[in-house]
């Protein structure tokens, strides 16, 4: 217990120190604003669920109440599993592996880590929502309150333990830089293929018009049958049974939840011992980390020989890093999954649209725009992986302008790859949507991405944060995240206008023209902004070096 208290104290001191050290100006402001935003979202979620519960009780509508429970539990589960992956790669800010120095048993380290995640922001986010459905949905009924509390608590245990297992497991896979990693990714792809293969085959041999919900429904039925055994559904059913007084059902749900919880704890412990406490150096030696010699694979100097050699040097280095990074590779897979989901599940649900926009095309545009956003972490914190290597830019005779151009070129090639992959997935699944639509999508992707990179330069130089190549945690500084949100809003308006106005005028062939004009304007703005980006870069080099020095 003394050790746990000491660690809690250290965590608290580090938080306070980091706040007082950087507690000036934009950084602190961004932090507070983003925290406020998260708090508003979290409380808003609680409020919405609470209102749903109240409405259900007033009407005496048990089905609606059940929906509220399901919604609360599923949202909690999805967020609880994803947030640690996206924000802290399961670390919840506590690096337990460094605590191995001290005389603490493995079990104790595990409990300390688990305890830290229970109270971390990753999971705290959905507590208010759960509390709202419990207080407003379960307590007033007066029956099964104790059981309700038990179900909620068990659900939290299930979420936290499984999210630990998942986040640490993924990290472990990726830490073995070659074999395991590839195996893991291949596994993901196989899973994806198994789930979607029937739908895929169906679309290939399906001559029916694409406007109807299609073969994916078969898979959806299987999926929804399976979901009743998931922890959130079990918990919700258990709650309903507790209110109805159905002992057998309650017992079944309780056993199921206990199974999930015990399984989660076991999985989390095993993964913890193997990955977090496992020898992190073991991957550094031996064959596992050998990289096949294929230097010319990304040698873009041969493709773009007319550019200055320094620009190409930085761009190809950038591409190598993107393709060797965990997030960079993850995105390549996620983009395929994402485009398949859009093509199969979401777009068919869109009702017929005004202005004669063909069903599905909107989904395609949305997808392409979103694809370019996949690389936000790299665009708004573009120096994250430089580490001490950043100094090469300063001591070499390359001008900052060329360095910036090179970095931007690298990210553009990467984003273009993502867009092309997603388009390919789309076309395979739904058929060729027409040359104009494809052209529009490509232009739209460029129109969204150029301004993003332009603003991202300033954000990256002003708010650099060191990140590890081999971690899923890649989020930019909080202020940079806010800036990216603002940029998104600013970019969306002209892009939507360029797509919609020609349709409203019934001149659809003007769409690409409008997009081209928009692209030319943003490119002009981009090159104009470069001068100021160089100034921002040169003015911040010392700050950036200091920020990147802590690179893991």
């Amino acid at each position, binding site marked *: 217990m003394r050790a746990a208290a000491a660690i809690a104290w250290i965590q608290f001191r580090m938080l306070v120190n980091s706040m007082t050290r950087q507690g000036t100006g934009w950084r602190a402001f961004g932090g507070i604003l983003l925290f406020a935003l998260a708090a508003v979202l979290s409380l808003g979620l609680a409020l919405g669920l609470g209102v749903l519960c109240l409405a259900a009780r007033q009407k005496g509508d048990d089905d609606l109440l059940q929906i509220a429970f399901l919604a609360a539990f599923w949202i909690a589960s999805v967020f609880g599993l994803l947030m640690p992956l996206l924000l802290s790669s399961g670390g919840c800010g506590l690096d337990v592996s460094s605590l191995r120095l001290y005389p603490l048993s493995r079990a104790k380290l595990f409990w300390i880590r688990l305890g830290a995640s229970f109270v971390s922001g990753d999971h705290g986010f959905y507590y208010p929502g759960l509390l709202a459905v419990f207080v407003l949905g379960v307590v007033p009924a007066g029956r099964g309150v104790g059981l309700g509390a038990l179900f909620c608590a068990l659900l939290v245990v299930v979420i936290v333990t499984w999210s630990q297992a998942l986040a640490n497991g993924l990290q472990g896979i990726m830490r073995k830089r070659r074999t395991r990693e590839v195996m893991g990714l291949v596994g993901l792809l196989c899973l994806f293929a198994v789930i979607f293969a029937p739908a895929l085959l169906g679309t290939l041999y399906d001559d029916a018009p694409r406007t109807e919900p299609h073969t994916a429904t078969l898979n959806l039925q299987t999926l929804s049958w399976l979901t009743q055994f998931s922890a959130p559904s079990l918990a919700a059913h258990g709650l309903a049974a507790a209110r109805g007084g159905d002992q057998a059902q309650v017992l079944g749900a309780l056993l199921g939840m206990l199974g999930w919880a015990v399984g989660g704890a076991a999985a989390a412990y095993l993964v913890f011992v193997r990955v977090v406490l496992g020898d992190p150096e073991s991957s550094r030696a031996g064959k596992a980390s*050998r990289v096949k010699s294929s*230097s010319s694979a990304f040698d873009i100097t041969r493709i773009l020989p007319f550019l200055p*050699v*320094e620009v190409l*040097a930085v761009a190809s*280095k950038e591409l190598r890093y993107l393709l060797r990074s965990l997030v960079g590779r993850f995105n390549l897979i996620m983009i395929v999954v994402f485009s398949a989901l859009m093509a199969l599940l979401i777009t068919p649900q869109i009702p017929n649209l005004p202005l004669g926009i063909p069903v599905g095309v909107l989904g395609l545009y949305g997808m392409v725009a979103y694809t370019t956003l996949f690389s936000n972490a790299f665009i708004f914190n573009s120096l994250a992986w430089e580490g001490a290597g950043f100094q*090469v830019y300063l*001591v070499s005779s*390359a001008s900052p302008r060329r360095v910036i151009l090179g970095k931007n070129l690298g990210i553009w090639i990467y984003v273009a790859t993502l867009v092309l992959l997603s388009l390919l997935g789309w076309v395979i699944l739904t058929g060729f949507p027409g040359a104009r639509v494809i052209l529009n999508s490509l232009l739209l992707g460029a129109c969204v991405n150029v301004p993003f990179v332009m603003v991202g330069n300033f954000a990256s130089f002003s708010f650099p944060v060191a990140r590890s190549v081999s971690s899923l945690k890649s989020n930019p500084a909080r202020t940079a995240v806010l800036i990216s949100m603002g940029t998104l809003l600013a970019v969306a308006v002209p892009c939507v206008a360029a797509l919609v106005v020609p349709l409203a005028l019934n001149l659809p062939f003007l769409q690409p023209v409008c997009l081209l004009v928009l692209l030319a304007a943003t490119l002009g703005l981009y090159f104009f902004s470069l001068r100021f980006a160089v100034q921002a870069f040169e003015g911040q080099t010392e700050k950036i070096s200091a920020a990147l*020095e802590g690179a893991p």
Partner: protein
Amino acid sequence: MLGHPMGNPTRGQDPAIQTRGLSRSFGSFVAVNQLSLTVAPGTFLGFLGANGAGKSTTIKMLTGLLRPSAGQAQVLGHDLASDGVAAKQQVGVVPEELALHDRLKGSEYLTFVGRMYGMQRDVLQTRRGELLDWMDLAGEPERLIVDYSHGMKKKLALAGALIHDPRVLFLDEPFEGIDVIASRQIRGLLQTLLGRGVTIFLTSHVLEVVEKLCTHIAIIHRGELVAHDSLEALSAGVLVQGADGETRPRTLEEIFLGLVQAETSETQTLSWLGNDE
């Protein structure tokens, strides 16, 4: 391959490195104070100082990593503030943190650095091959830099600093934390470079190595330059009595300790280590 024909017709008279009143403070703390130093071409200068004396800060100011708070610095006659690119073209640096991108392979890193100095493809290719040979890397299936040993990383950083054939070389603690073999190899290469007329500016707090290699010594203490001369001149100043009763020139360690007035407390001990009573 490495090295130069001696001298340069236009800039032959310029000192390799010249600073005037070079200072840098962090907040109110003055890390380097009014440093004025002139280093002739072809010198191997050992820049000595205790931990935190300001050695790295000086090197960083001379290589464009840190801006001076005051004063000027010239490298090969190019003012760093106004004409930095021309200077950097002829300077190689191994900074304290080793400016490596550790998710590249060794050869990729060397290509990257070479291109950053605007090198021609064919020249780059031959030099990269030779440098990889020197590092005993050629032919091996290549690993990412992150998997290199510390000594290999240092050698790679040095290779990166040499690939564009610089005339001035800045090395911050090149012998820190490496084994005897790598250390010998690096020393050998530095001596070859010196023979070719390259100016070397090396910081260290390991006096034995410096004593073996350097032609000149500068000592910095709490941000101020307290000595700068050739090694012989420094040690010839005062003779001391050796253990055998003979008089001999002072060792570098004696000079160093004398100049920085180290308040050593060899006699002081820790309470629980015990007076054996």
